Structures are given as structure tokens and as C-alpha cells.
């Protein structure tokens, strides 16, 4: 199974692998980023993307359970004894529980699979039978719920594109918000966007300023709007008149002035 995500979406692939209970590894490459997802009987058991290689040390560091420095020490250790041994060691020494490790790995796998599902393009190839090395810790993760969640996010993004078709509009705060600002739990991104809301800033300008992608800014604007805090304001560029059009407009306005001055006088 080979192809490009342009023709066959990530969600479709995940669905297929999950439903057909396939075993093997899916490799995907997009602009220098490489992802590998390994499946056993249709369940995701291992996920890696570039530096987040799925090794125990990197997974624990990413989850904030250990520092980056600790991770590099542990990674060195793992090269000798393997992730499984390392995990046992950490549990025996009482640093972490088995449940901690499983939770971190599941979190890591889910994050990577979601990231993969957001890719619009990238060459993929499924290699049946190939699985991660024996020394790696694999944790089976049911894909169903994740696929549903991914689909929900994608549907929302599509809706947002319909609701906010153009980013060349500006935003304003509604006059009488039905919610109190202090009752809302705003994300960091939402606060950042709020700072730039004024008539002269279009959504695109705000996105550029904050280095956000179109999709990211749409999500933020969408949720602020849903919360009843802001509304969209369309800005039309000022029309540039040609000299002839200006002359015509001036003549029209003069005629209107004459007419209105005459109201109640000549009648």
C-alpha cells in the first residue's frame, strides 16, 4: 500500500488499517518530516515523528515527567540495555509506575497520530509485517476514538472555513457580551489574538503578526466568536475612482445639493 496523502487522507488510511486489523508499519514523509506508525491487528502500538522517536526517554521528556538532561542520560543507557529494561529499572527504583509509563506512551502516540492526520500531503507506504524492535515498549491504542476525534476536528475546521471564508476582515468586540470575560477560560492563543483586535487589523494581519497558520487563527477566532465575545467586520477597500468617474460623481452630488436646497422653497 503506497500513495500520497493528497489522494488518500490520513484519516482514511487510519480507518482502513483499523478496520482491516492490519499489522505493519506506515511510513510517511512530508517536506523533510518523517513519521512512522506501527500497528498490530489494527491497533496503534508505536509512533515516531522525527526527534519524537517514540523511545522511552523522549516520550517521558515530552510528557514532562523527566527533564531533557535526564532524558539524554537515559537515552544513552537505553542504547545499551533497550527501552524495556530501562522501563523496568525506572519502575524498580521507584521513579515511575508502570501506569505512568503506559499513560505517557499513549499520550505520545495519540499526539503523533493526530499530527499525522492533519497533513494534507506526503508520500506514504505501508510495510506489512515490519514492527519496532523487540527492545521497544509497545502499548496498543484503540484507533476508533482517535479517528472520531480527528474527524470532529476536521469537520470543525471545514465549518470554520465556511464561517470565516475570508481572512481579510477585521474583528470587534460585541457591545454586550452575554458572557463575562472572567467566566471564560481563554487559551494562551486566544489572549494573544484578543490583544490585536481593533478595526484596523484584519484577521490575516493578526495571524501574520502572531505567526499563526490560517487554520490556527480560524480556530481561535471561531471559538472567541462562539463564546459571544467578538464579531466579524467586513472591510471593503476604498474604491479608486478614475478622473471621469470623479467628475461624474461630483456632478451628481451637485445636482442633489441643488435639489435638496430647493425642497420647501420652490414647491
Amino acid at each position: 500500500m503506497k500513495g500520497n496523502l493528497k489522494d488518500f487522507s490520513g484519516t482514511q488510511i487510519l480507518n482502513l488499517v483499523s478496520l482491516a486489523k492490519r499489522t505493519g508499519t506506515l511510513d510517511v514523509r512530508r517536506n523533510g518530516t518523517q513519521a512512522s506508525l506501527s500497528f498490530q491487528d489494527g491497533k496503534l502500538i508505536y509512533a515516531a515523528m522525527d526527534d519524537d522517536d517514540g523511545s522511552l526517554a523522549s516520550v517521558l521528556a515530552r510528557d514532562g515527567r523527566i527533564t531533557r538532561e535526564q532524558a539524554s542520560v537515559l537515552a544513552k543507557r537505553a542504547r545499551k540495555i533497550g527501552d524495556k529494561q530501562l522501563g523496568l529499572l525506572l519502575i524498580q527504583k521507584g521513579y515511575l509506575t508502570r501506569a505512568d509509563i503506559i499513560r505517557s506512551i499513549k499520550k505520545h502516540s495519540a499526539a503523533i497520530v493526530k499530527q499525522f492526520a492533519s497533513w494534507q500531503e506526503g508520500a506514504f507506504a505501508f510495510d506489512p509485517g515490519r514492527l519496532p524492535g523487540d527492545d521497544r515498549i509497545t502499548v496498543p491504542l484503540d484507533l476508533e476514538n482517535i479517528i472520531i476525534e480527528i474527524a470532529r476536528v476536521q469537520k470543525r475546521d471545514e465549518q470554520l472555513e465556511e464561517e470565516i471564508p475570508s481572512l481579510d476582515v477585521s474583528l470587534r468586540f460585541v457591545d454586550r457580551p452575554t458572557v463575562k470575560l472572567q467566566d471564560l477560560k481563554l487559551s494562551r492563543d486566544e489572549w494573544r489574538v484578543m490583544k490585536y483586535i481593533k478595526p484596523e487589523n484584519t484577521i490575516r494581519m493578526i495571524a501574520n503578526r502572531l505567526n499563526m497558520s490560517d487554520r490556527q487563527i480560524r480556530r481561535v477566532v471561531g471559538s472567541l466568536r462562539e463564546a459571544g465575545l467578538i464579531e466579524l467586520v467586513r472591510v471593503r477597500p476604498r474604491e479608486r475612482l478614475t478622473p471621469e468617474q470623479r467628475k461624474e460623481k461630483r456632478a451628481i452630488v451637485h445636482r442633489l445639493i441643488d435639489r435638496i436646497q430647493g425642497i420647501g422653497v420652490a414647491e
Partner: protein
Amino acid sequence: MQTKTVKVVVTGPFNAGKTEFVRAISEITPVLTERGISSEAERIKETTTVAMDFGRITVDDDLVLYLFGTPGQRRFDFMWEILAEGMLGFIVLVDSARPETFREALSILETFRAYAPTPYVVAANKQDLSDAWELDDLRIALRLDPDIKMLPCVAHDRESVKNVLLELLYSILEEIDLEEQSQ
């Protein structure tokens, strides 16, 4: 030759006097669609304009000016946008005696200004009422730029309505001049 039509939009908060304003200068009685109002806050008047006030001033066979009053309730925003398209300019009416509506007036003004960057004037309506705010105070309350015209108005007095409309037209001429100079 086809008759050319141009339009001016008359906007402002609920009860500011838009219907009265359009009626005072129009050749035809504004077409009103009155409907009962549900919310408590809006019971100030028995009915409100749900569709729009629509007035006409014929110059001659070739030229007609339409006046459109906006429905004063924000839930009809989408209609405003359609109204704003291609307008020569707009007039924001403020009820000078009801400071509790000034904020709304300002926000309506800003909304329209964003729809289309045309010239506009602000009319301080109901200046005949004893508790009407003075123009200078209103200007501060509405945070109006000094270069925006603020005119006294009594909507049932045709001369006063004429003056507001004429001042808007003068502003449009000034804008054409400015554009010419900037080229």
C-alpha cells in the same frame, strides 16, 4: 437613458428618530413594516421598524436619491451590510436626550465605517427636548474625531433634516477634492 439611483443610509440606535428623519424629507411616505416587539428593553415604543424605512427624492428623470433607514436592532446586521454596499455616505442619528444609547450609537457608527469607508456625519437628534445634550458634550461622549461633522437635528423639522443631508453631501464633495489632490 436609464435613471441613475444613488443612496444614503440613515442609521442609529433604536428610537433615535430614523423613521421620522426619512419621513420628513421624502417624497413618498416611508414604507414601514411595523411589528410587535418582544424584549422588555424595547417596549419604549409600541412597534419598531423591522424592514427598513425607505424614502425617495427625485432630482429629475435621470437621477433619484434613495434614503434607507436601518432597522435599529443589531440582530439585523446582515441587512446593514447589504444596505451599505454602494452608498454615497451615511448619517448616524443619535437621540441627544438618551445618553444610555450613546455607546450603541458609537458602535453602530464603527460598524458602518468598517462596511464602507464613505463619508458620514453625525446628527444630534431631538435637540428640541429640554434634556438634550449639547453638541460639544455629545462629541466627547461619542469620542468623535474633530474632523467629523456633528450637526444639530430635529427630525420632524424638514429644514433641519435638509441641513444634515446637505452637510453630508458637502462632505462627499470634500472627499472627492481630497482624492483628487492625493493623485
